[in-house]
C-alpha cells in the first residue's frame, strides 16, 4: 500500500543500534507479553516486512498503544511508534478494518449524531445494558471511560451565539472533536483566557484531526481528513495567525504525526507545523514575551499534573506546568508516569482494557499519593483526563480551565464561565 521513499518513517529503522532502551521503557511491554516491545515490533520486525508484501508476517503491532514513549527515549532517533503505525495500516489494508475500529475512527460523526439529542444518546449508550452489549457485539470495553455528550449544545454553537472581543491581535482556535461535542467547557475556558490576554479569537472551519484513524491503521481515510484540515487551516496559516489547540494530541497530529505517518511532508505541511501551537505552549510564549497578565487569584489546592504522552511527544518541555506554577497558592505536582494507558482509542478496546488499566496504574498511584484532599487532576490531553477520572475518581481539568479559574473567569467545579452564571 504505502510506497517507500527515503523520507518514509520506516527508513529510520536504520538508526537503531539495538540498545534496548525503548524496550525497557515501553509501558505496554511492561505489563503484557502479548506485545514484544518497541525494538522487536518496530525497527527489528520492519526488516522482515517487505514494502510490497502480500501478507504481513506479524500482527503483534496491534498491541502498540502509540504512546510514543519509545520515540522519546530512543537515543538514536528511530520513529518506532510510526513504524508500528504503518505496519498496522498495512494489516488493515490487507484484512480490512474491524467494525469497532471503524467506529472509533469516526468519533466525529458519532459526536455529531449524539449531539442532536444528547440526553437520549447518553441514556441510550451510557447504561450498563447497552455497554455490555457494545462489549459483546463490538468489543468496546464495558468499563472504559467513554465521554458523555455535552447536554448544553456543542462548542461551535456556543461560540457563534456569543459576543466576541474584537481586537487587533488575533488568534485562531482549533478545538477538536472532544471539545466540540463532549467538553465544550474546555473551549469556553480557552476563549475566555485568550480574550483576557486581549486577543480576538477566530474559529476556523475544521474537522477531526484523524488521530483515531491513524491509530487504527485507516490511512487512506486519515489522509482525507488531514488534507481537508490542511486546506481549511491554510488561509489562517498564510495570514500568519497562530493556531492554538486545547487538545494536545490533535495538535501533535496536525503538526507532525500525520505528515510523518502518511509520508506527506511538503511546504504546506511545514507551514502548518510552524503555525500550530499547543495552547499552554503558546501561553508560555506569551509569558516569555512579557505579555501574560498575572492578575491571578489565589487557588489554594494541590493539583496532580499528569504529563500526557502526547504532550511529551511535542518535545516542548512542560508548558502547562510552567504556566500553572505562576498561580499563587496552587501546588502543582508533576507526575512521572509514562502513560495513562488509554492512549487514543486503545483502552476502549475490550481486549486491551486490562492492559490499559495496568499501564495507567502508575499514574493512578501518583494521583492517589497526593493525598485525600485532592479534588482535581490535570493533563493536557482529554484522553488522559478521562482515564484518570476513571482510575482515581477525581475530576479531570485542562490546565487552561485552571488558568481561567485563576483569572477569575471560570468556575472549576461546575465548568462554567462566571460571566454566564449570573
Amino acid at each position, binding site marked *: 500500500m504505502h*510506497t*517507500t*521513499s*527515503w523520507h518514509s518513517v520506516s527508513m529510520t*529503522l*536504520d*538508526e*537503531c*543500534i*539495538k*540498545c534496548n532502551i525503548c524496550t525497557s521503557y515501553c509501558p505496554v511491554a511492561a505489563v503484557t*507479553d502479548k506485545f*514484544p516491545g518497541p*525494538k*522487536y515490533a518496530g525497527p*527489528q*520486525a*520492519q*526488516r*522482515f*516486512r*517487505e*514494502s*510490497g*508484501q502480500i*501478507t*504481513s*508476517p*506479524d*500482527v*503483534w503491532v496491534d498491541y502498540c498503544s502509540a504512546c510514543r514513549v519509545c520515540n522519546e527515549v530512543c537515543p*538514536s532517533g528511530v520513529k518506532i511508534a510510526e513504524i508500528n503505525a504503518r505496519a498496522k495500516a498495512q494489516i488493515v489494508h490487507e484484512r480490512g478494518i474491524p467494525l469497532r475500529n471503524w467506529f472509533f475512527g469516526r468519533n466525529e460523526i458519532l459526536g455529531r449524531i449524539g449531539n442532536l439529542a444528547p440526553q437520549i444518546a447518553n441514556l441510550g449508550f451510557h447504561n450498563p445494558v447497552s455497554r455490555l452489549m457494545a462489549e459483546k457485539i463490538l468489543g468496546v470495553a464495558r468499563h472504559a471511560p467513554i465521554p458523555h455528550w455535552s447536554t448544553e449544545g456543542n462548542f461551535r454553537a456556543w461560540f457563534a451565539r456569543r459576543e466576541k472581543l474584537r481586537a487587533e491581535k488575533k488568534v485562531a482556535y482549533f478545538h477538536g472533536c472532544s471539545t466540540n461535542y463532549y467538553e465544550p467547557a474546555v473551549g469556553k475556558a480557552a476563549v475566555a483566557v485568550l480574550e483576557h490576554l486581549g486577543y480576538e479569537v477566530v474559529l476556523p472551519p475544521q474537522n477531526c484531526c484523524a488521530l483515531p484513524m491513524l491509530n487504527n491503521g485507516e490511512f487512506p481515510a486519515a489522509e482525507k481528513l488531514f488534507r481537508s484540515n490542511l486546506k481549511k487551516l491554510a488561509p489562517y496559516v498564510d495570514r500568519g495567525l497562530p493556531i492554538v489547540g486545547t487538545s494536545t494530541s490533535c495538535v501533535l497530529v496536525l503538526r507532525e504525526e500525520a505528515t510523518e505517518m502518511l509520508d506527506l511532508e511538503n511546504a504546506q505541511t511545514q507551514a502548518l507545523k510552524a503555525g500550530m501551537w499547543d495552547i499552554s505552549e503558546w501561553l508560555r510564549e506569551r509569558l516569555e514575551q512579557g505579555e501574560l497578565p498575572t492578575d491571578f487569584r489565589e487557588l489554594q489546592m494541590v493539583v496532580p499534573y499528569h504529563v500526557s504522552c502526547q504532550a511529551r511527544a511535542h518535545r516542548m518541555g512542560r508548558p502547562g506546568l510552567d504556566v500553572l506554577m505562576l498561580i499563587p497558592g496552587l501546588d502543582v505536582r508533576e507526575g512521572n508516569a509514562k502513560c495513562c494507558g488509554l492512549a487514543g482509542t486503545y483502552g476502549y478496546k475490550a481486549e486491551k482494557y486490562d492492559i490499559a488499566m495496568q499501564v495507567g496504574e502508575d499514574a493512578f498511584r501518583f494521583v492517589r499519593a497526593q493525598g485525600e484532599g485532592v479534588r482535581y487532576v490535570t493533563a493536557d490531553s482529554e484522553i488522559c483526563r478521562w482515564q484518570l477520572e476513571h482510575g482515581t475518581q477525581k475530576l479531570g481539568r485542562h490546565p487552561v480551565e485552571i488558568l481561567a479559574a485563576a483569572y477569575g473567569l471560570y468556575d472549576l467545579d461546575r465548568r462554567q464561565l462566571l460571566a454566564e452564571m449570573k
Partner: protein
Amino acid sequence: MPKIETDLLVIGGGATGVGVAWDAALRGFRTVLVEKRDLTHGTTGRYHGLLHSGGRYVVKDPHSAEECIRENRILRKTHAHCIEDTGGFFVVTPEDVNAYPDQFQAACKNLGIPCEEISLRAALQREPLMNPRAARVFVVPDGAADSFQATHSTAQAAQIAGAQILNYHEVVALIPAEGDPARVVGARVRDVARGEDVEIRAALTINAAGAWAGVIARTAGVTVNVIPGKGTMLAANHRLINTVLNRCKMPDDGDIIVPIHTVTVIGTTDEKVQDPEHLTIEPWEVELLLREGDKLIPGISQARFVRAWAGVRPLYQEHYAGASRDATRDFVVLDHAARDGVAGLLTIIGGKWTTFRLMAEKTVDKACEQLGARKPCSTAETPVPGVEHGHYWLGHRLREVEQNHLQSELVCECELVTRAMLENAARNNPTLTLDDLRRDVRLGMGPCQGGFCTYRAAGILHELQVQNSQSKIQDPNTWHVADLQSPARNAKLEIGNWKLGVGTPNLLLRDFLQERWKGLLPILWGRQLKQERLDELIYLALMNADHLPDEDAVSPMSDFYSRRGISTTADTEARDA
C-alpha cells in the same frame, strides 16, 4: 595415520564440490568430500546471491546464459527453499540508452529467456526507490539464492545418499601412486580440528577447489591457470528493494543490486588478484560500488551499510591473459590424464553458483567414463531435504517467532535466531566456530553484527560443551540442515551433542568478534560506526574482551580472522612509493 578408502575423493566444499559429491553418491559411487574449513567458506559463501536468469550473459556469453536459464528452472524445484522468487529487472538507466537494450531483448527471445518490457510507472510502483529516470525496464526470472543453505542442504542430500562430508579437512598434497608418479591415488589430508593427518585413497580424485584448484593441482605437478577475479560487495542494512535490479548493459562493475534475506547487496567489482586467500577490500572499490549503486537506486550511497566482503571467482581460460571481467563464465572439466598425462585426477573449474548442479553432472559423467558407467544423473529430478518448505519468503522467521511466542528465546535478535536454532545447528553439524553457526542460521548477520549475540552464543555453546563432557560423542560427520532455518520447527527438534566442540567460550567469542570486525572496517562510517562504538563499549569496556583468560588460545581460524581485510590509503601509498 588413519586411512580411508573410497571411489571418489572430492576436494572443496563449495557449491561445486558438494554438488559433485551429491551427484556421485546418487549414482552409487562411494564418495568422500573434504573441505579445509567450513562448507561454503570459499567463494560460494561470499557471492552475490543471484540466481541468474541468464539475462546478464545473454549478449556477451549466450552459452552461459542458456545454461543459467535451464539451471534456474531446475533449482527452483530441487532447492526451492533456498530461493526467493524475487524476479529481476533489467533497467535502462539514462546512461544505458544505446543499442544494447534492443540486442538484449532480441537475445533473450532467441534463447527462450522470459523477458517482458513493462512501463516505468509499473516498475516504480513495484520498486519505488528505483531510478525514476530510467528509460526502459525489462522483467526476467532472476531470483535470490541462499548459497549457505543450498550447499548445506545438498550436503545433507549427499550424505543421505551415502557420501561422507568432512569439513575442516585440508588437502596437504595429492598422493602419487607408488612407482607411478603420473597417477594420483588420493590425497594426504590434515584434520585441522584434531591436528592429525588422514590418508584418503580414491580411484579418482576430483579437484573442485575453485580458486584454489591451481594450488591443489600443483601438488601433482600439474598446472591449472586459475585467474582469481576478486569481487567486492556491500550490504545495506535492510531491504530497499524486493526485486533484483540489473543495469541493462554489458556486464561491468557495480551493476547489480540483489535483495536477499534482510539486506540489499550491491556488487561487484572484478579485479585480478594474486592469492585467493588474502583478499583485501580497497577504498576505491567501496566508492565505486556506492557511485554505481546510485545509478540504479538514487540515494543508496547514503543508506546504512552493515558489511563489506569479497569473494574470488574461479575463472579459468586456457592461455588467457586479459582482464578478469572478460574471461568466460563457462566451466570446464579438465581430464588431467588426457591433458597432462596424469591419471586419476579431474579438475572442475569456472562456472557460477547457478550452474553448480550442471557442473557436477558433467564432472560425474566424466568420472563414469573413467571408472565405468553407473546410473545416469538424477540430480535434476531429486529435491534436496528442506524443499518441502517451499520458496523462501522474508517474513517467515518473524511470523514463526510471533506465532510460537519465541521472542524471549532470541539469541540473535536482528536475524531472529532462537536458542534452539543455534543449539540444533551446533548439535547437528560439525561446528568449530561461531562463524560456522552464522552460515547455518545467520547468527550475527544483522545490524549489530554480533554486538548482542556473540556473548550469548558463546555462553550457550559453553553449556553444550559441559553437557558433551557428560555423555558420549556422536558421529561428527552427519549433517542435518533442512529445518535449521525455522524458529518454529527447531523448537520441536530432537537434539544431541555439540559436534566438534573444541574451543573455549573466550576463544569462540574473540574469534567471532574478530571475524565480524573484518567485514565492518571497510564500511565504518555513519550509522554503522555508531553501532560499532556501542559494540566496542560492550566488549572492550564492559567485558574486557581484550584481556580475557587464555589469551593465547587460538583456533584453526584465528589467524584467518585476524588478517586485515581492508587496505587503507596509507597501505596503497606505501606500496606505490
